[in-house]
């Protein structure tokens, strides 16, 4: 195992001696579930294993992967952020409008990301500094960002004229779509962040016992604000990539995407109570969720039923999380 693989597995470099079966199950349990699911889909779902479908699947997963990484930080600190979907849409529109206005791809991307920073700062400040409940805070900014997206887009999709921008979303590198590479990079960066930086450890400490963390000198307010800013930026990045893939900024896109990100994290094993979070969990959750959705599409399952399935998966994941917490006492 080289270093980056260890990061991906969420394994502290030092603790290999203690690997026994239960630890192994905890670390790789949901990844094994994914492997089983993948094999089952390959056997039973027509066209699943086709090259074309795999590319589509990886693209579909890429956006969820990016956003779930930063959602991991939120959830591990004992909170969550509902404004994701709206930020994705609004930042895509922002990038589109600014590119059309200035003709500069770089300025457009920066404007899109800037929007994520602003929403993240608002979330972080209101939640961490003013002490308002994260649910209400991000519910409000979710509405605001969605509205802002519609306003700047003029209520409809904004086609992008500068085709240089499409490089991010539509090109391939070494046989994989560029967004997939971006997502892989995100996994590595966030895995490193949570395992190997003080920031990451502080997040887990806050999620585990906020008052104890504060009394131990952890800058709780600052850390929380950073979490939301990073989450805003990652959502915006996902929005920009999406706009590039669709060659337009669409204000009505990614509705309900916060559910996807939260589901992926919880499904993979990130505890909703906070204090526990590994990048391997997120990867497993994203892969499982993406595979299920992809197979449902291939099987031509009515979208209405897909909602039902997604909701059920989230519910089962939460119940499983609860059960796991009780048995670990």
């Amino acid at each position: 195992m080289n270093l980056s693989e260890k990061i991906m597995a969420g394994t502290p470099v030092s603790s290999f001696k203690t690997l026994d079966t239960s630890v192994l199950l905890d670390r790789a349990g949901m990844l094994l579930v994914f492997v089983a699911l993948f094999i089952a889909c390959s056997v039973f779902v027509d066209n699943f294993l086709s090259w074309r479908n795999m590319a589509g699947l990886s693209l579909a997963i890429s956006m969820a992967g990016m956003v779930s990484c930063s959602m991991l930080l939120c959830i591990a600190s004992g909170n969550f952020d509902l404004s994701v979907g709206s930020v994705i849409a609004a930042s895509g529109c922002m990038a589109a409008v600014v590119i059309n206005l200035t003709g500069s791809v770089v300025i457009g991307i920066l404007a899109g990301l800037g929007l994520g920073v602003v929403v993240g700062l608002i979330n972080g400040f209101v939640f961490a500094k003013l002490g308002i409940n994260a649910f209400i805070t991000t519910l409000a900014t979710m509405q605001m960002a969605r509205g802002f997206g519609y306003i700047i887009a003029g209520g409809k999709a904004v086609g992008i004229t500068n085709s240089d921008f499409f490089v991010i979303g539509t090109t391939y590198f070494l046989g994989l779509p560029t967004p997939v590479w971006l997502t892989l990079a995100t996994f590595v960066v966030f895995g490193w962040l949570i395992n190997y930086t003080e920031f990451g450890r502080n997040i887990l400490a806050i999620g585990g016992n906020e008052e104890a963390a504060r009394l131990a000198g952890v800058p709780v307010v600052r850390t929380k604000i950073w979490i939301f800013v990073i989450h805003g930026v990652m959502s915006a990045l996902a929005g920009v990539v999406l706009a590039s893939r669709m060659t337009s900024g669409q204000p009505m896109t990614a509705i309900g995407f916060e559910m996807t990100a939260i589901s992926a994290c919880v499904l993979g094993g990130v505890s909703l109570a906070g204090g526990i979070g590994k990048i391997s969990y997120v990867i497993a959750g994203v892969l499982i969720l993406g595979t299920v959705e992809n197979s449902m599409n291939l099987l031509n399952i009515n979208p209405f039923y897909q909602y039902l399935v997604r909701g059920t998966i989230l519910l089962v994941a939460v119940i499983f999380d609860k059960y796991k917490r009780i048995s670990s006492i």
Partner: protein
Amino acid sequence: MALGSTVQPSTPYLEFVHISKSFPGVRALEDVSFGVHSGSVRALVGENGAGKSTLLKVLSGVYRPTSGCLKIDGSERTFSETSDSLAAGISVIYQELVTVPKLRVAENLFLGHLPRRRGMVDYRRLYEDARHALDSLADDIDPRTPLGRLSIGQQQMTEIAKALTRGSRILAFDEPTSSLSAREIEKLFAVISRLRDEGRTILYVSHRMEEIFRICDSATVFKDGRHVETFNSMDDLTQDILINRMVGRDIKDVYNYSPRTHGDVTIEVRNMTGPGLRKPVSLAARSGEILGLFGLVGAGRTELLKLIYGATRRAGGEILLNGVPIDIGTPRDAIDHGIVFCSENRKAEGIIPLGSVQENINISARRRHGHRFGIINESWERRNAREQVRALDVRTPGLEQKLCNLSGGNQQKVILARWLSDQMTVILFDDPTRGIDGGARSEIYGLIRSLAERGVTVLMGSSDLPEVLGVSDRIAVMRDGSLSGIVERTDASEQKLLSMALPV
């Protein structure tokens, strides 16, 4: 001597039969068997991590034993959750209280079976019943007060009242007196002997030997998760024998005081005001000095320490370090100035329960020693954690062990290790030995002493008179949110301190 002796029936009312409990990497209980007769008070004694708390959790259904079973009145019982244990007539009053602080006292007392009239809560009856339940324990508690506003001592009384309203046949007390005032302790003992005379079965976990010899009829000693010996009568037993069986060594003077030379004044507090203080407080302490901070529950010790530490925002006043005014707005500021704090409330304010031992040790110091640019230096982290664990003799199966799986005393050592990983000028201890027993207690005193010998200024809040007298060079006494005086060690006596601490 016990309060009285009763005729004991032939079969024990409560029996532990070959109980074992393992956690990943830890054997908390190993083949524990003993019985307790009804109408008696049984002391459970042992060092930290000896297994007493785990045993109580098995009794209350929090843990399911890995093997073995419980027998109540001769019939075998298994509890899969705490409600099963409650239904079997068992109440455990824990050291760390489990309550709903925002609900009123009365609601806490009858939670789950509130009196009802026409489908709605009958508040008049609720308050009457609560009043009645509290009468024999604490008549100073208004059942309408939100529980969180009571002192820890009063909350504990409420917990006991709750057990009594449930009509429990078996009551287990886990360190019930650690936060109680002398008066409250007297009341508690009166209640316990009444319960015993009513024929209930009582388990009493405590580290305070005087209490055990006063209130208990028999004693069971634990060591390292094993049952060592049960003494069916306290008559031939002495404190020395008991302690000897607990630790396998004699403890003579646990405090081991010897005079030190003190340096210059390090920390000075001028006219401190804030939540919990009624009058401005001023005091100063020198390098190498241990300043005891004595006061009854609710006198403002904890509040003062937290104000100094920046954990609560002060309303006014100044803090000077080595003669220079410093600005402490948050605990982080205090730590940066070398002022550190150990809370009396480990569970809520000390430990990161799911964090590993290593993580809990390094969380504060790493930013000055462990890393550059916010990146963790794994080898420093491991080395420091290993050194601290060895130096403080933390009993843990490994550095990766989650801290919540360790015993209270070992958790306290880990918190200490956190601060010992860094340079400090002043350490603020709040009740450093709360819920910690004989052997580990003297280890903690030894640590406090060695800190002072290294020139650290120690402020030690405590409500334990012998402890304050045994450890401190000077003693500041608090009463009702103000400082009632500072006494030199040589002038201090239990009577004097108590008279300064008792409300006038």
